[in-house]
């Protein structure tokens, strides 16, 4: 399960890693373009809503970047051990916060504000990934316990 979580975290961190790859010039340019192309259909790329890292605009907008960062952190380090119900409420609150920000921003009440966009996206990503990670962890622990219980040593045979 750790491999799956690490793989998923690496994948969703790609928009952030791409800027670093481009800045250090340690990998070929086609890799940057491949990452851009893979994420291209997932986001609108409006100029005022995209962060610029290392002199290059990111391949997703700042809210999506926050969402992916939150997912990556949630998959990698998880979150506090909470009841599923509590995580369920946290995800709904995070979605509500993002919806409020989207509506007020698109209604012209405030300009696109990157910290708020990053934070609302990251909150959704982190709470969801932490909840998923907790469920995966629970399953892995139960399988381990069941495996130990059915082993010859545990049964005393």
């Amino acid at each position, binding site marked *: 399960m750790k491999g799956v979580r690490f793989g*998923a975290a690496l*994948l*969703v961190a790609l928009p952030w890693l791409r800027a670093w790859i481009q800045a250090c010039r340690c990998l070929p340019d*086609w890799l940057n*373009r*491949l*990452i*851009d*192309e*893979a*994420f*291209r*259909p*997932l*986001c*609108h*790329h*409006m*100029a005022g809503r995209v962060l610029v890292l290392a002199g290059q605009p990111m391949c997703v907008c700042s809210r*999506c970047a926050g*969402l992916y960062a939150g*997912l990556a952190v949630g998959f990698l380090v998880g979150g506090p051990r909470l009841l*599923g119900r509590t995580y*369920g409420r946290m*995800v709904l609150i995070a979605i509500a916060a*993002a919806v409020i920000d989207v509506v007020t921003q698109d209604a012209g009440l405030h300009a696109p504000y990157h910290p708020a966009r990053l934070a609302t996206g990251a909150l*959704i990503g982190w709470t*969801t*990934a932490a*909840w*998923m990670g907790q*469920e*995966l962890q*629970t*399953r892995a622990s*139960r399988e381990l316990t069941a495996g130990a219980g059915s082993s010859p040593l545990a049964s005393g045979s």
Partner: protein
Amino acid sequence: MIEPRRFFPAAAMGGGVMGVVIAIPVIGDLLRCCFCIGVMAGAVASMKLWLDSHRAENLTPTDAMTLGACSGAVTAAANWVVSLPVRLAFGEGLSSYYGSSTMLPDLARSNLQALYTPSPVMIVMSLPLQGVIYAVMGAVGGFLGLQYAFATRKIDA
């Protein structure tokens, strides 16, 4: 042990239909760029199909993630296949058409312009990476779908 194959008729139908829907310009772009909601909706639709055809069975959160991931990968493949000829043959023309269109909202125009500009080689090479990204977002959709929409059919991990 998780067996993704048992989800396949349902995942192929739900994911396939959603892949075609999100390949439709404007509607598909909005569905994709709003937190991948189209991919997640495909995962939920696949889950509904599977649960309806397996009334005696329930799902664990891990099963739901697996079902959602399968559905997401199918969505990516179907979307790629449907949009590939359009993007290769008419990409440049559509990009300039949408770029100068004033009747579309800025969000849709930017998305469409970005979608129809890349190089053919990158479009072809991006499928595997896109498939995995959609699978991760599908897994998120499957997990959230089980928690919120089909909570009565959930069994603990």
